[in-house]
């Protein structure tokens, strides 16, 4: 039970139940759709950038607790970041989820997902929003985690 509690930390379930960044950025500069065939979930991420800096991010769509909370917290941490920083952050985050890597360099709001490491099947949920935004920033429309 203990690692299950670490997967569903209170901060995660809270953001899953009451996401702060659900909706659409309008007007937006980038839009991406992510799909996780495992959950059947679809996520639409809208972004507004100014030059290379992310000014606003929102997400929409149904998702599991992990993917919803991850999308919501991603939106929080990315505001003010450059596209390059976003990509580096995703690498760090991915490392947190998949390797026994040091979490020091990970923002506290993302570190709550370290429990995912014990649930390899859920890595795709935690990264769906990230794959989607990066795909959108790269100019592609769709992303999938399968």
């Amino acid at each position: 039970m203990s690692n299950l509690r670490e997967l569903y930390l209170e901060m995660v379930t809270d953001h899953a139940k009451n996401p702060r960044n659900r909706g659409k950025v309008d007007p937006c500069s980038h839009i991406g759709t992510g799909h996780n065939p495992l959950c059947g979930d679809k996520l639409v991420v809208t972004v507004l950038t100014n030059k290379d800096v992310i000014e606003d991010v929102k997400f929409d769509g149904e998702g599991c607790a992990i993917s919803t909370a991850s999308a919501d917290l991603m939106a929080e941490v990315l505001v003010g970041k450059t596209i390059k920083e976003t990509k580096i952050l995703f690498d760090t985050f991915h490392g947190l989820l998949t390797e026994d890597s040091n979490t020091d360099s990970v923002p506290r709001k993302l570190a709550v997902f370290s429990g995912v490491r014990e649930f390899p099947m859920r890595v795709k949920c935690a990264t769906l929003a990230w794959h989607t935004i990066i795909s959108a920033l790269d100019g592609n429309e769709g992303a999938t985690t399968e």
Partner: protein
Amino acid sequence: MTDTATVDNFPALHQKIGDKKLVYLDSAATTQKPQSVIDAVTNYYELDNANIHRGVHTLSQRATKAYEQARKDIADLLGASRAEEVIFVRGATEAINLVAQAWARPRLCKGDEILITEMEHHSNIVPWQLVCEQTGASLKVAKIKDDGSLDIDSFKEMLSQDTVLVSVAHVSNAIGTVNPVEELCALAKSVGATTVVDGAQATGHMHVDFSKIDCDFYAVSGHKMFGPTGIGCLIGKYTLLQEMEPWQGGGDMILTVSFEETVWNEVPFKFEAGTPNIAGAVGLSAAAQFIRKIGYKTIHAQEQELLAYGRSVLEAIEGVTIIGTAKNNAGVIAFTIEGVHPHDAGTILDHAGVAIRTGNHCAEPLMKRFGLHATCRASFSMYNTTQDIDALGTAIQEAITMLR
């Protein structure tokens, strides 16, 4: 109810997931295997392993005999009128693709229609989409009702003189609806359509009589009826099989080969190119024997009892909605939990040792019909008990406590 002697037959069920007893409620995905099936496969490899047909040495003779006996066993169990009506394939998916490519593709053209239903598994949708693309035929879809049963009126409406082929699930994998396939096939015949029944979810759970259903083709999945993976059958009417061209080319499916002319072998060999899954067929033969020993009647009664009990337990949990409440239903319960996404439910239940499936169950159009992306699905087999269902109920409560 299930006696423990029955459960004892299944070695995989006697294990713990973490510190919890495994409760396997995912039999619609694949059934567990009785020891007799596992042993049949092992014995085959340890004693008789050889390539079949055309071999004169003892092992080859034994392997050939066992393989052809498996064909007879399946024919007997499922009511084929002769062993040659049974073609061994990888599973139900390949069986349906075989019909699509070897029967439908050369015969269909623009204007022709294929009729399926809203509750089909992707394996009974995509092969027909491919054929439609290849031939210009179009796909029609009969509607289902809110309780998950087929809307027969819609089915009748969709049938027309243009309907060349009708393919319906015997039992829905996603919600468990049992279709009146005899009636549907008779209706299809009345407009001259050829009929396919996707029996993947039927043959492990209830008595199936190919000749009585009177369909032209019946698709069987071995791994869903206690058999090994990688084996299944297409049962087809002998005369239809004879008329068909082969699908795959290779060893065993030809009588003579020259670069100028090649003569096909007889049915069923015409459709079994290359070395087949011999050990798989031998294991399936043992599965057929196992089913015979227990009896479809016992299996079915047992699963119906679990279904009734399962529905009552789940209905009693606040926020749980059951999808698919047809009268004639197999031991499958699809449900959603308010405030708990199926994927989270799957993880939390697994932690309690309860294995269910979550997602779209390879039936996306059906999900859409119910306005859902995904559901949880508990599916039963003869080795399940009411205690298993109690464990399911408890685990769902835990998930609710954790996430709602």
